[in-house]
Structures are given as C-alpha cells and as structure tokens.
C-alpha cells in the first residue's frame, strides 16, 4: 500500500456478537483500532452489513428468543441507529419442511441471519432468514416482501434444518447481472435464480455428503458458506459441512479442492480482494467437536484457487486454543495489501493487514462473535 493510500483510507469492521454489535475502525495502516459499542447490549446480533452504494447505510439484525426480531438501520456509519420494519411474513400458506425426526414441521420465522444490501441502491436490501426464506426490502428496511419462489421450490418439503436451524445464510448478487443471485441454506444446499428471485433451482451437483445415501441427491447438503470474487462471479468457493468445494460455472457443478487441509470441516470461506484465486478457510476438527485441530488456530490460504493450502499462524494462538469461527465471521477489505479479518466464539477479532501473513488481535474479550464485515472507506 502506498503511504498516500494508507493516509487517505480507513477500514471499518462491523462485528455482530451474542450480546451486541461493535464497530471497529482504523486508518489504512490497520495498526491501531478504535472500538465503539456495544450497541443493542444483551441482544444477539447475527449480522451487520453496509450498503456498497452508501457506506454510511448499515443494517443490523437484532434478535432474542424472548422478543423476536428487530431490524436496526444506521444512516451515519453506525453512530446512531433507528429500528425499521420487523415484519417478516411468509407469502401465502407457509407450508412445511422436514424436521429433525423426518416429520413435517411448519415453516416458522425465527430471525434474520444475513443482510445483503444491493450494489447500487442503499434502500434495497435482501434478508436471509430462518426458517429458510429470502426477503427483500426496497424502502430501506421499512417493509419486507418474501421472494417466495425459493421457499415454494418443489424440494421445499425435503429441506431439513442443520444444528443451527434451517437458515438462509449466504446471499451472493452477481455484480454483472443483479438478477442472478446465489443463496445457501443449511442444510438444504445452494440455489440460484437468474430472474431476480422469481424462480430458483438447486445447484448442488457434485456435492457429496456422507449422511446422504443418494450421491446425486438434489438437496440435503449442509452448505456452510459460499464466497465469490466480484471480478469472476462464475467461480464460487464453498465451505461445506465437510469438504471445501469449487465451481467454475456458477454452481452448475462442483469439485472438491480440500487437498492438504488438516480438516476439511469448517464454517467461513473468503476470497482475497485482488487475487481471485487466493482463498481463506479456517479448518475445524470435526462436526462433533467444533474446535481447531490440535488446539492451534490456523487460517489456511490457497493461492491456486483451492488445493495446495498453506497454514497461516503468525500471531495466532498455537496452543490451548479451542474457539470456533462461525460462517459469517470472516471478511476482507479492499486495500492493498488486502486485509483479512475474522472473529471467534471466544470474543477475539483478529486482523491481518498483509493478506494473512501475520495477525493481531484487535480485541480479545468481546462476546462470542457471530459475524464480521469489513468496509474500506476513502
């Protein structure tokens, strides 16, 4: 990064935790960080995200099991917040999906897992919710309308929740064609629309899940996260429950790129801002333990579009570390070198200003981190 870029730019991290939201800011050096918050203390903040069209427009998902869902909006970069609309009503008859015991269970709204503001209009924002559905607001979050073609897909009755619920957690809008959107649902799989959300189809060919006896099953895959580089939206990287996968055709087919990872189980996956073939994952020991292998917290980086993974350990705890990194808790900025960030269930937020080569804990004692988003501000 040039000295001038460092002086003129800033990074803002939007951190959602089990007990509130935090906003972390630094100049372009990314050496010293200010911490604001908690906002909405005591509430679970599943996600905070910013509009690409207006960096001061933020949306936060605030919820508890007691009092349900609140949507908070900021128009000043997180200094002040206003509650907006929180009515998420499934269109028509909600219907049923498969429950853990194989019986049918009514579709019930629980919370918003992920907000994805539209690229060009700060008032348009998508919300991925539990029980799985995609909602859209075109008035800055005041009102929400379900894009019900997804939930009404003919496979909907077969969708089954993962351990965290039947959640729609990934929303990727194709920057070249905003009518093409990829979403992922745990544990139904990935789906794509090419007509702005009216019709959807599963895009899970090539996924193999050991729990599914039918290797070609269209749905039932526990996709944890999908990432995309904006310059190459046809290439998708997926952290599945087990397996790191790649698609070169917009999800039409997938192949495994786990290769030499110590474990191919994990939650987040992220792509370098300037190198579309540089990918980051955080291997976790297994789906029954959810801790780093050998008590060592390691980010793995592939510079070859998957496979050939290298461990990144400098500055990360390499003994007695048993935190997890959740699916929405890793992000990159767009400075050069690319900054990489992740939060842990132990309350640390780690930052790397050099594309993962070295790491520093910005904060160490937040509540369990649920999500991290990075904004690059000029």
């Amino acid at each position, binding site marked *: 990064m040039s000295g001038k870029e460092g002086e003129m730019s800033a990074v803002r991290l939007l951190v959602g935790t089990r007990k509130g939201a935090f906003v972390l800011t630094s100049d372009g050096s990314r050496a010293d960080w200010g911490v604001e918050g908690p906002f909405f203390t*005591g*509430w679970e903040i599943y996600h905070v995200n910013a509009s690409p069209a207006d960096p001061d427009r933020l949306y936060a998902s605030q919820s*508890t*099991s*007691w*009092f*349900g*869902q*609140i949507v908070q909006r900021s128009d000043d970069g997180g200094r002040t917040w206003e*509650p907006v609309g*929180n*009515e*998420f*009503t499934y269109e028509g008859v909600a219907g049923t999906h498969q429950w853990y015991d194989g019986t049918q269970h009514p579709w019930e709204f629980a919370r918003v897992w992920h907000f994805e503001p539209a690229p060009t209009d700060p008032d348009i924002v998508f919300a991925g919710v539990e029980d799985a559905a995609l909602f859209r607001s075109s008035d800055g979050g005041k009102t929400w309308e379900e894009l019900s073609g997804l939930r009404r897909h003919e496979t909907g009755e077969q969708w089954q929740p993962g351990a965290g619920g039947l959640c729609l957690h990934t929303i990727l809008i194709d920057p070249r064609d905003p009518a093409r959107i990829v979403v992922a649902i745990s544990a139904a799989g990935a789906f794509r629309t090419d007509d702005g959300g009216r019709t959807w189809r599963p895009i899970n060919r090539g996924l193999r899940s050991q729990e599914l006896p039918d290797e070609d099953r269209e749905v039932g895959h526990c996709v944890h996260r999908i990432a995309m580089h904006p310059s190459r939206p046809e290439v998708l990287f997926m952290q599945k429950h087990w397996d790191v996968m790649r698609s070169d055709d917009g999800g039409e087919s997938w192949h495994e790129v786990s290769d030499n990872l110590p474990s191919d189980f994990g939650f987040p996956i992220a792509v370098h801002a300037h190198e579309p073939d540089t990918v980051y994952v955080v291997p976790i020991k297994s789906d029954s333990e959810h801790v780093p292998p050998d008590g060592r917290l390691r980010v793995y980086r592939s510079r070859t579009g998957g496979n050939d993974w290298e461990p990144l350990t400098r500055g990360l705890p390499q003994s007695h570390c048993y935190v997890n990194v959740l699916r929405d808790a890793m992000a990159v900025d767009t400075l050069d070198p690319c900054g990489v960030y992740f939060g842990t269930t132990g309350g640390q937020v780690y930052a790397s200003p050099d594309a993962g080569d070295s790491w520093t804990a910005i904060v160490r004692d937040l509540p369990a981190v649920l999500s991290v988003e990075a904004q690059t501000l000029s």
Partner: protein
Amino acid sequence: MIRVALPQHLRTLARVDGEVVLDGQEAPTARTVLDALEARYPVLRGTIRDHATAERRAFVRFFACGRDISLDPVDDPLPDEIASGAEPFRVVGAMAGG
C-alpha cells in the same frame, strides 16, 4: 390511566424510562392494553405478540396484581386495580437462558 411495566430490553427499544402510562380504558383486557401499547410505540410490534397471529411470544409472560395471567383468555377483563392505574400491567421476559 393504565400503567404498563416493560422489561428492560423493551424499555430501551421504546426509549422510555420507567413505566408507560396509557389512556384509561373501560373494561381493559390484555388485548386492548397491548393494542394501545403498540399503537403508542410501534417499535414494540412483534416483540410481545407475533405479528401475524397476535399470539403471545413463548418467552413473554403477563402479570396483573401479582398473578400470572399469561394463559388467561386475552379478552378477559383485567382486575380493577389495573383499570384504575393502582397496579401496573406487567410484561415480563421469562427467566431463562444466559
């Protein structure tokens, strides 16, 4: 007047200190009190009762004069002490979780 005591999180959300005071009602019920509360503070819609069904949320309870009335019909008349403002209608978050 009718007094309503809200749990801390809902007071914060509604930006009120202490109890909420609503206009008096003839023969108030849980339903009419909550309707008036939500009309005054729209931000509370969906936090006490479900948007679509108006059913009480599972971890929310209602108390009147020291009695848990959560399972009573929502159209039952509330005690005179609530109607007169001598006692507050209490919305309580169930003690659970961490």
